[in-house]
């Protein structure tokens, strides 16, 4: 199997809270991440694509095309945004696990008609010390 991966970044605010629970319960579960006014991260995003290498271009997907898809579907939406206010996180706590799942969902359908390229995997790096993978690891 051959895959190509690319790294992006977005800066976003969030807070972790289940609305039906009390403040004390939320703090018990999420600690300082439950701060009611929110906090933020420089999220790293790694996107891995697989598919046949096009003999005319030497590529699985043109990097510019991949950048455009990721920019359009993820970065423009989440960069410098409050994730809790996004419709994709209504009823979904914006943990890094759920961000990885949502980002995968946003990207997956974008590769139809891209010469057989398909999304394999996304990785969210919430800080330099933790990372979250969703999808098939190469």
């Amino acid at each position, binding site marked *: *199997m*051959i*895959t*190509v*991966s*690319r*790294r*992006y970044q977005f800066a976003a605010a969030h807070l972790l809270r289940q609305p039906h629970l009390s403040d004390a319960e939320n703090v018990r579960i999420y600690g300082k991440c439950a701060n009611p006014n929110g906090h933020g991260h420089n999220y790293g995003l790694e996107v*891995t694509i697989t598919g046949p*290498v096009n*003999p005319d*271009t*030497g*590529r*699985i997907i043109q*990097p510019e095309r991949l950048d455009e898809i990721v920019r359009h579907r993820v970065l423009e939406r989440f960069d410098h945004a409050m994730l809790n206010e996004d419709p994709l996180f209504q009823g979904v706590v914006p943990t890094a696990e759920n961000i990885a799942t949502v980002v995968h969902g946003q990207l997956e359908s974008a590769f139809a008609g891209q010469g057989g390229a398909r999304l394999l995997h996304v990785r969210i790096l919430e800080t330099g010390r933790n990372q979250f993978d969703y999808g098939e690891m*190469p």
Partner: protein
Amino acid sequence: MLRITRAIEFSASLRYRRADLSEEENRRRFGPRASHHGHNYRLEVTIRGEPDPASGMVLDLKDLNDLLEREVMSRFDHRDLNGDTPYFEKRLPSPENLATVIAEILREALAPGLFDRIRLYQDRDLWVDVVEP
């Protein structure tokens, strides 16, 4: 099953150019990649196997080092991929194709069954994996 990864770095120049196309058409298709340019590539080579009960090693890292020096560094480091290697006369020196070439070389050079995967970074933000089933 154990996996061991060794990293090396090499610097090479390249251009995306098809001999059957005009200069103008090459530039239109490949943009800045049609110009002579270069990258610091980072290659991570992963081998797999069971450690030898006596030595405790899957493969002596010195042997792996020597092999990478001979098979990869001597071919690609401070070379021009188009002009100094035979691999890109009929295919473009994209990271996908370069990784495919290196994977073929290493599969051939390593003892059967040892090759697990490679990861080739073209730069910090773009890399290609070739993974054995």
